[in-house]
């Protein structure tokens, strides 16, 4: 498995073409993501970050251009369950206990009950909520629910994880904690991640590369490498390279007119 994880080749996306509600969301977007890489998308609201994610996930189809995921079409990759997804709202099913939420994708994939239970126990331990499997989602705090959503997305150990502002609704402290946790989870599993965020520090801390999108229509303005290396700990937040990189992202956002 040496090819790229994701290839986006001159993709355009126009919603409702030819009608009064026409929106040119993305224009000639080119992006290649390597296996195991952590790439963040940042940019002003409405610039098309979620649309990029939804294109990769084959939840919407491009108007022009093509998207490959692990060397196949995005559609085939979805059918092969090559990726997991997490959103800003945890989106847990309130009528299922926590463990059974994690098992939902496994159920749909036809896993046996014993295998499902073993895996959900493993995932619960991984997000350090082992004792909450029998609780209902609403008995958990927002941060705990989000960890369950991540455990659900990773339960079948997909090679790719797509995340749309997953920590957007959390407070700063919980958020930083979850960032470290996510990094160690995905580096253990070798998961490729595409991560949408509004936070410069979050993008810097998590990513190998940060993609800055400009709005109307969304284009890639700049791709910034983050030279913090792998195996980052919270100490990385205090390194000069962290500040330098954050500044670079901020300058880039300022150049496209996003007050940041």
């Amino acid at each position, binding site marked *: 498995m040496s090819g790229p994880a994701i290839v986006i080749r001159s993709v355009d996306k126009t919603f409702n073409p030819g009608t009064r509600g026409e929106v040119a969301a993305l224009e000639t977007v080119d992006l290649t993501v390597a296996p195991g890489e952590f790439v963040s998308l940042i940019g002003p609201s409405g610039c098309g970050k979620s649309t990029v994610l939804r294109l990769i996930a084959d939840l919407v189809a491009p108007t022009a251009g093509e998207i490959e995921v692990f060397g196949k079409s995005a559609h085939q990759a*979805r059918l092969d369950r090559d990726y997991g997804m997490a959103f800003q*709202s945890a989106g847990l099913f309130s009528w299922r206990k926590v463990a059974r939420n994690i098992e939902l994708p496994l159920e749909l994939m036809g896993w046996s009950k014993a295998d499902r239970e073993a895996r959900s126990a493993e995932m619960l331990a991984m997000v350090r909520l082992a004792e909450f499997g029998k609780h209902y989602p*609403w008995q958990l705090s927002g941060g705990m629910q989000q960890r369950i959503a991540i455990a659900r997305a990773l339960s079948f150990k997909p090679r790719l994880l797509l995340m749309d502002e997953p920590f957007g609704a959390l407070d700063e402290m919980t958020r930083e904690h979850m960032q470290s946790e996510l990094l160690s989870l995905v580096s253990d599993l070798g998961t490729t991640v595409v991560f949408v965020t509004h936070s410069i520090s979050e993008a810097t801390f998590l990513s190998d590369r940060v993609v800055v999108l400009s709005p109307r229509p969304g284009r890639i303005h700049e791709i910034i490498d983050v030279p913090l290396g792998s195996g980052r700990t919270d100490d990385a937040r205090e390194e000069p390279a962290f500040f330098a990189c954050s500044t670079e992202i901020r300058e880039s956002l300022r150049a496209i007119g996003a007050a940041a």
Partner: protein
Amino acid sequence: MADQRGPVIIDAAANSRLGSVGGWARNLGLVAVAVAVMVVAWEGYKAIGQAIGGTWPGTSVDLPVSPDDLTMPHTWSILGALFEPVQRGSDETLAVFLLKAAAFTFVEAGLGFLIGGLVGLGLAVLMLRSPLLDRALVPWINISQTVPLIALAPIIVTWGRTTFLGDTVSVALIAAYLTFFPVAVNGLVGLKSPSTEKLELMRSYAAPWSKTLIALRFPAARPYLFPAFKLAATLSVVGAIVGEISAGVRGGLGRAILDYAGRYTTGPEKLYAAVLGAALLGLFVFGMANLAEQRLVNEGEEQPR
């Protein structure tokens, strides 16, 4: 109805147990108070009405309802009639007779509830699946409820008698005609209630439409379906009684009401007792649906905003 959002409680198990015991006691108390108020109002109206001679004071204009014992028998005569023989020489009391009639009507109503519920759910799923069917069916579903049941009932029973269906099934079909409607309408809203994010999550798992229906749409529809089931439960009793009366089916509460209305002058208490039985049967099925809701929809369940 959809936004009765209960407070979020941390220990749901303990709390709902406490809540239901307290709830039962409170509900029983409320019922007792309501019955007492009705008895006092009834007897008070009679007493005052008779004291002033049955007309508005100072005029010769009659009161809206005459307070005499034929039009408004005493509450205790109604109660007493329950424990007297249903006919002279019979050793069955009216209470037992009405209980049997209620059981007969309950079977018709229950069958009608089941048929109506299944048809309603089926229609909701069809309308969800196909926007074309949705547009085609909605006018018919609405028109169906404007056709008077009284007109329809004899037709259904006549058809039933020409086929292998018995009268019980015919009356059940009449009840189903009323019950499918709220289930179809609320069911469709409930099936459409999951957020785009949850639906996209199911798509991301490449879940087929049927799995999405079972694992997401049906569970999400429960908070919408149960209010419809409660309404349908009471409607099924109404439908069964109206069906019996208009089709002349023997053995149920509808027939008893019709008979006692015909023999009103010789025993008005019996008619009131039969009507009371019908009301209690309605309450009973409503209570059953309510109990099912409490069991199957959690208190902390996320409600649509």
